[in-house]
């Protein structure tokens, strides 16, 4: 049976929290009302897990998760909108900074929906995971594919704070296993169409909760018989120059970095800089319409797939 992203993530939550002796899942409207468009469905049926509709108090709710983790009780804060997490930044930064060195005895996961479907207004469309990852120094995962979701839930078994984000646009999309998974690194899943035909090897590295553009670019290049790898960032972090992921990216002749986030600072810039310093041929695409985000917009990603592909073809 095909599952949507919402259903698949819901099943992963149920699976994960069925395994604990005591645990708590909390958030606004998670086991009544909209259940966050279904993300919260059935969470009140998990054995030994308290599923809690909470007050509207994000700062306290972030602290609640830290207090539970200090007390060896795993928890999940399901948050309808990423921008609500701004109200909890004191906890995410200051509290986490005191407790992140081994004092948290259980996982505390904050799962946020990035409202990227457009027309929500200037305050509801935050998509700034780079800043959150930087401020909190916590593992920050993009739930942008089935493999990314599996990896994020596996890595979040570790005690401590974990941030997860998914695209609202994707929630009702079918979450199908990819046919082409090749390698799992700590920070990314690599999907490849590598052909031994002598053509340049191209890597499309995707940052953000939405990998649709990167997938389309990869598909077009494949149709044109390029050897292309789609490298989907799972965990947002500085990519170490000595890491397996960096060595795999650098093994390509041409690298296209696509970032669908709206941050002013980008981990993708850091990667592109390091690749360039190693002499690689890089095209970096980041969103640049921040002027438009102060009013209601369709929030469409600005990169045009055809022009990205054409630029690659010209260069090769």
């Amino acid at each position, binding site marked *: 049976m095909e599952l949507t992203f919402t259903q698949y993530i819901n099943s992963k939550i149920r699976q994960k929290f069925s395994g604990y002796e005591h645990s708590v899942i909390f958030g606004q409207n998670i086991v009544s009302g909209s259940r966050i468009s279904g993300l919260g469905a059935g969470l009140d049926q998990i054995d030994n897990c308290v599923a*809690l509709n909470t007050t509207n*108090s994000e*700062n*306290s709710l972030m602290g609640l998760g*830290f*207090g539970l983790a200090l007390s060896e009780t795993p928890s999940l804060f399901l948050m309808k909108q990423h921008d609500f997490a701004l109200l909890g930044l004191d*906890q995410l930064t200051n*509290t986490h900074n005191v407790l992140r060195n081994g004092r948290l005895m259980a996982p505390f996961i904050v799962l946020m929906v990035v409202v990227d479907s457009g027309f929500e207004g200037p305050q509801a469309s935050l998509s700034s995971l780079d800043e959150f990852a930087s401020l909190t120094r916590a593992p920050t995962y993009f739930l942008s594919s089935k493999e990314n979701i599996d990896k994020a839930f596996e890595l979040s078994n570790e005690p401590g704070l974990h941030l997860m984000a998914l695209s609202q646009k994707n929630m009702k999309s079918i979450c199908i296993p990819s046919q082409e998974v090749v390698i799992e690194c700590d920070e990314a899943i690599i999907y490849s169409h590598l052909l031994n035909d002598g053509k340049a090897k191209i890597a499309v590295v995707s940052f953000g909760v939405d990998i649709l553009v990167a997938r389309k670019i990869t598909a077009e290049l494949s149709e044109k018989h390029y050897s292309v790898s789609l490298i989907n960032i799972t965990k947002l972090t500085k990519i170490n120059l000595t890491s397996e992921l960096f060595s795999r990216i650098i093994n390509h002749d041409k690298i296209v970095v696509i970032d669908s986030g709206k941050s002013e600072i980008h981990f993708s810039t850091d990667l592109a800089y390091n690749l360039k310093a190693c002499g690689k041929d890089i095209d970096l695409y980041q969103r640049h319409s921040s002027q438009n985000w102060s009013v209601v917009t369709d929030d469409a990603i600005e990169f045009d797939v055809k022009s990205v592909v054409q630029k690659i073809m010209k260069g090769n």
Partner: protein
Amino acid sequence: MNPSVESKLAKKIKVMREIQVSINKKMLEGQFPIPIHLAIGHEAVSACIAEVFAPQDKLLLTHRNIHFHLAFGATEEQLTNEYMLKPSGLASGKLGSMNLMNPQAGNIYTSNILGNNLSVALGVAFSIKIKKQDGVVWVITGDGAIEEGAFYEAVLFASSLRLPIIFVVENNGWSLGTSISERRAQIDLCKFAGSMNVEFQTLKDNDINDYLNVMSKIREIVVATNQPHILEIEVHSLGGFYVAEDQDSKRYINYHAGAIKTDPDKNGIFEKNNTDPVFANLKIFNVGTS
């Protein structure tokens, strides 16, 4: 109260004062590279909480925490070494003063951000409740932190979930160098607590019999009913000083984030009234109070 407990607590308060005065001296000598907030005048609060504290209870502190660490068993040497960031310090020289924790004594979190520890206390209390551990969370806050929205959120959440938590408000009337009347309207915590269906008690004048009775009863009620409480305790942070602002005026400030700089014999580290817990409990030693 058992006279031996009374005597033990009075002596403990006196020793805590002596250690703080000793640490103040070291601060004046510039021995510590970090900021330290003394709590001279707060000793009865921490000594009595430590007395009624059960092994399964948890304690969450603020930046002004030295009196709690002393009451919960830290030695002068452990604190001094911690403040010098030495490996032999209470937290191996890693936390300094404002975030100093002592998990072995039940103090699992300390924050220097006003109101920050209140939210964390909710999670600790919720865990105690779902695991049916019969413990109580003592979260310390002050008259400055109750101005933060975090206080409102935390009390409402604790009441909504009936959490085993005691919010201890050490009201010394000062936030940084600003008194309550200089910065805000009065907050009637009794009415505030009542509006959220939370129990409220108040204490003042450092009578350790009174303090122990009230604290023990509150703890019993919280364990039995999961009914959160707010306990407001008036404290007088000794060591106030005058700041000369121009030729003709001086402004009194009763707040210190650092050493008490005045002459030790005239500096207000001891006061002859019941706002000073050492003085208030001298009668236990059968000594005169003149």
